[in-house]
């Protein structure tokens, strides 16, 4: 493993995505701010925008940093560098994850802080399950992109994740315990929510491990 080369590859991709990254970061902050306004309609629009930014950022980064490397034929250029498949995989998966996590963390953090500041502490209970759900969906798309190297399949998984997200939100808010906490000013963690978060974290970790194993077992690099 060549750490120096991995660092260069990582920085290269970070630089290549700089404009998109900045745009998603700003859009994420704006959407979060909107979601925290007292006007219910605006706050709802803001919340929808937060979800949209998270979904768009994920598919965009996977598309431009990972899949485009094959379709734009830059992969051949990169693979001719003195790097191994392991170096390439570590650099690639970590940079895609990083570029996603930057707007994701900004929005997540912004919403948690704003909710606390505004004194609606109970609302915080829904944030971790929702954001980890988004991250989970992103990881599944990343895994699909690694395994299939196909834009079609990755979009297919993204659409499925979005459908599931709607069902998930419905179920989450319909849960009587969750509804109770949201209304109150005290933050407590119902067992239902804790279980969801645990499953989500497990899925995220599993996707990451499988993506790595799959990527490093490829025999033909191009």
């Amino acid at each position: 493993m060549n750490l120096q080369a991995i660092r260069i590859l990582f920085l290269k991709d970070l630089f290549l995505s700089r404009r998109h990254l900045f745009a998603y970061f700003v859009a994420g902050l704006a959407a979060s701010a909107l979601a925290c306004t007292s006007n219910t309609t605006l706050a709802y629009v803001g919340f929808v925008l937060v979800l949209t930014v998270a979904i768009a950022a994920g598919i965009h980064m996977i598309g431009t940093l990972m899949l485009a490397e094959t379709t734009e034929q830059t992969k051949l250029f990169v693979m001719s560098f003195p790097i191994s498949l392991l170096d390439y995989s570590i650099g690639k998966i970590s940079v895609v994850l990083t570029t996603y996590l930057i707007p994701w963390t900004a929005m997540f953090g912004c919403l948690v802080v704003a909710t606390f500041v505004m004194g609606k502490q109970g609302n915080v209970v829904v944030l971790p399950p929702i954001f980890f759900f988004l991250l989970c969906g992103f990881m599944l798309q990343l895994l699909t992109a690694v395994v299939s190297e196909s834009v079609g399949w990755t979009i297919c998984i993204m659409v499925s994740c979005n459908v599931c997200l709607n069902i998930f939100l419905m179920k989450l808010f319909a849960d009587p315990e969750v509804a109770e906490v949201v209304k109150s000013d005290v933050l407590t963690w119902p067992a239902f929510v804790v279980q969801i978060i645990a499953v989500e974290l497990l899925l995220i970790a599993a996707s990451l491990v499988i993506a790595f194993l799959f990527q490093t077992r490829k025999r033909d690099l191009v």
Partner: protein
Amino acid sequence: MTTELGNSTTTELAVSMVGVSKSYKHFQLQNIDFTVERGTVAGLIGPNGAGKSTTMRILMGLVQPGAGSVSVLDKAISSNDAAAKQDIGYFSDDMRLYKPETLSWHMQLVRSLYRDWDDVYAGQLLDRFGLIPQQAIKGLSHGQRVKAMLLLILARRPKLLILDEPTNGLDPVAKHEVITELMRVVEDESRTILYSSHNTQDVEQISDSITFIDRGRVIASSNRDDFLEKWKCIKLHAPESWTLPSVDGVRLESSHRNLHVLSFNQFRGELPVQLQTPGVVIESVESMTLEEIFVSSVIRGRQEG
């Protein structure tokens, strides 16, 4: 004899492939035996889809062969061996740079990855190729893109250049610039070039050895002048009772009434005399161009295989 002339007897190999095979759904590379001596220019000629790119990708460790052994610059090659690639410069016509970024950005990137990057040489190459470092890749013409990629490879002085169709689609001036630069590389006798094309004219002049490949198999390998001396085309008039003589490497290329055109791939000076049986009049003994030799070898290979 000078030491340089004397060196011809020691054959250090820059590239060696023994019994290499690779299967795809609709294409098979079969049992490739192929070597390139250090300090030489080797041309790999084949029609489109012959297996040139696959062969070169195997040498770069980008594709794992199904069978056989591959050694490049005395190292076994595999997809997890990064060190070997430090000394190899790989170009492919299928390769693209990052369109929104500039050439100078690419130069910085490559420079950070290779220990032997030479800033002075890179500057000379910019000059000789007429490239502007501040220009974004998307604004470059095909010829400029090829030259930009070659610059990125040449400026780090690799010991071995593996160039997959470098002159494909270049105008004559750009082609001349590229070939001049490649010949400068071989002035250093420790450096080797392996170069593929579907066009004999691109490689014949500068290649020390030329290998023809078709349908995943090596069909002939020699140097240009040996090819030209061994292959001849004889036109003769013969009576109707005449049959093709049983000489090694003869093939009837075409017949029109009693005029026959024969090609030979093991021509010897005494051959025309041997062919002069009663009634046979030899009209001409002609050299063949490398392109004619290539086409004839491919057709012979396909008929045998």
